[in-house]
């Protein structure tokens, strides 16, 4: 249980933000699984953080920040889906529910996946690592990555999903090897 009243805390706000930073990847991963768009997931993550802060001030005790944050994120995702029902292409309710079920299951073991991902990234070739870094950490577009690495945009466009696929399979192998799948 996260202890809100730990002696190491300076202020409620500091503690809240620290917890948010610790659990952000679980909440963000959950949101992205459901909305499947980075830009929308970023927006929803921000809205979720604001609502979490607001609710944090009203809530006496939170047993699990991740679970609590995910609950609020779920609410925000549903709100998003409703608001954009006629504006954006969305998965239907059946598929959404199936994804939700799967996302919750995967989220439970996210830390192990994260560890496995780090190992898998270290096994990538330098250029593949660079593409991942530019795409995900620097937020570069396909075109700008292509310019930086002197590749054609078409090649970069094709390479990104391949690298992702390699990482997904590597993570699975790693988790299997460690008896975690």
């Amino acid at each position, binding site marked *: 249980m996260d202890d809100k009243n730990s002696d*190491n805390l300076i202020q409620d*706000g500091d503690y*809240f*933000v*620290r917890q948010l930073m610790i659990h*952000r*990847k679980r909440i*963000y991963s959950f949101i*992205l*699984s459901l909305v*499947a*768009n*980075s*830009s929308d*997931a970023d927006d929803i993550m*921000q*809205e979720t953080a*604001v*609502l979490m*802060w*607001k609710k944090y001030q009203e809530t006496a005790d939170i047993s699990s920040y991740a*679970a609590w944050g995910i609950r609020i994120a779920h*609410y925000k995702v*549903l*709100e998003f889906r*409703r608001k954009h029902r006629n504006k954006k292409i969305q998965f*239907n*309710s*059946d*598929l959404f*529910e*199936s*994804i939700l*079920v*799967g996302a*919750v299951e*995967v989220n439970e073991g*996210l830390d192990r*996946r*994260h560890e496995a*991902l*780090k190992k898998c*990234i*270290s096994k990538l070739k330098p250029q593949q*690592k660079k593409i*991942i*870094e530019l*795409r*995900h*950490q620097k937020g570069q577009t396909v075109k700008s990555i292509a310019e930086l690495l002197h590749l054609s945009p078409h090649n970069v466009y*094709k390479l*990104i*999903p*391949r690298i*992702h*696929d390699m*990482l*997904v399979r590597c*993570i*699975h192998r790693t988790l299997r090897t460690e008896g975690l799948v």
Partner: protein
Amino acid sequence: MTDHNKNDKLHLSELISDLVSGKIDAKRHEELHKILIEDPKSLEYYIDYITTWALLDECCEDHESESLQDDFYSDIWKALAENEKNANIIEMESKRSTCETLEKANIERVPRKINKVNLTVAILSTAALLFMIAYVSMFPQYTPEDVATLSDTVNVVWGNSSVNYEKGTRLYAYKEPIRFDKGYIRIGFDEGADVVIEGPAEFDISSSSQMLLSYGRLYASVPQQAIGFTVATPNSKIIDLGTEFGVLANFDDTTELHVYKGKTTLTAKRKGLVQGNAVVSEGQARRFETTLGIQDIPLRERAFVRKIYSGNNFVWRGQRTIDLADIVGGGSGFGTGSLNQGIDMLNGASKMFGKSAELVGTNKYISVRSNPYVDGIFVPDGGEGPVIITSGGHVFEDCPDTNGRFWGGTFNGAWHEAQSIKIPKHNLHLGGKVYGTGDNPSIYAHANQGITFDLLKIRNSIHGLTIDRFTANCGISETLLDYSELLKTWDYSNKEWKSIKPEDSWVDFYVLVDGKVRFSKKDISVLNGAIPISVAIYPEDRFLTLITTQGSNDPYGITNDWSLFAEPSLHLNP
């Protein structure tokens, strides 16, 4: 992995990559949708892929790339520097005075160490402060959103004595749970779903299309535009797919789902993990219990209150008929009336019937004020022309000539007694059934009697339900045969009792709507048994009249005319 599978995976990963990047078009989105719906393995892969993408986006501080750490800390240092501009002088002064104090106290100075934990915490604190300031200034303060309305309540007792929600109160998402110990409430969600909850119950509103039922019973009616409406219980989640359904959440953490129209999905959970899924369709019901899982159970038609209306405390559990005998007994038509209660044919007053005798009618139409759904009563006698049978002035043109007498009155029940000829009080029979009970209602209408029901007022009481038919069985009680040896009639000419056979007693039965005959059977004897009545009722019909007259078997008059309308029902079309 074969080349084919590998190619499929790569194609799938390209589709997903385009989706997440916002680059997918409608056609490819549909293709992806189809793949994910049809292939569970692809769905698993999709979730793995997206999760990996999310981890790649989020893991900047854990990533081994030095450049990433540099970026992160440079942002923090910038924030710290910004803070230093505003806070430095005061802090320096504090530190100086502290140092001076320390010097004066001659405390041994220790070499100044930079405590990494404290530094990190300080950095994070500053960053945290700026982070929150940034969020608060960039995004509007969150205000709770009102997402539903408390549309109606009937006899509700709120769980918290300081709470008194009134009709029309707006309800907010993510506020405190709402609890009530008794009664019924109706909530209209902004997305369109309508929910009736029966107490005792406790629930939370999650959004304009989602709620949590901690315990209690609810009935949800979800129109097309609100498909996706979700009810969660402590151990399950029900998602509507265009339907009407009832949910019962018990204190022992079991959940029941009954689907009356359309279909829903039921996801059963234990400790937050999914235990099972089911699609539950119209006419089906499921129960979920943590130890036993999801089980099939029989659908219960009357388990949930579906409609309420506070104007007349109307509470409807999905019954498909209105019992007119119950109405005669002072009830709503849904079982709230009293047995043996009826209407005095001489003055229209409400009356409990315990004894009966032969009486003479007033030959007038008497308005009934004691019963909201009965327009009036009369003793039919067409000897002097058409008989008025409604307050609207409708007449029964071909009303037969009668002696203007009747036995007892019109009441909710079916018993007869004739002390003068030693016939004991007993329940009447028709078609082999015993009537005048809760299970077998009837209107006892010994000839000559007529009663008119106000269909408009009945319709107004059932809020949105329509009536499309009247049915009943009519006839003379078969107990006439049981007492055949006791049957006598008074011979007025010779002033003596004469024996009479059961089959010599005849009755005419009529059903009229707005003065027009829609059913008639004349000279019915006990030997005819139960005669079915089925009369269509249209939206424009106002008055329904049931009449019994003495038959053409002179000189017996109303003798032994033990006539009844058994199971008189108005049929509803929800």
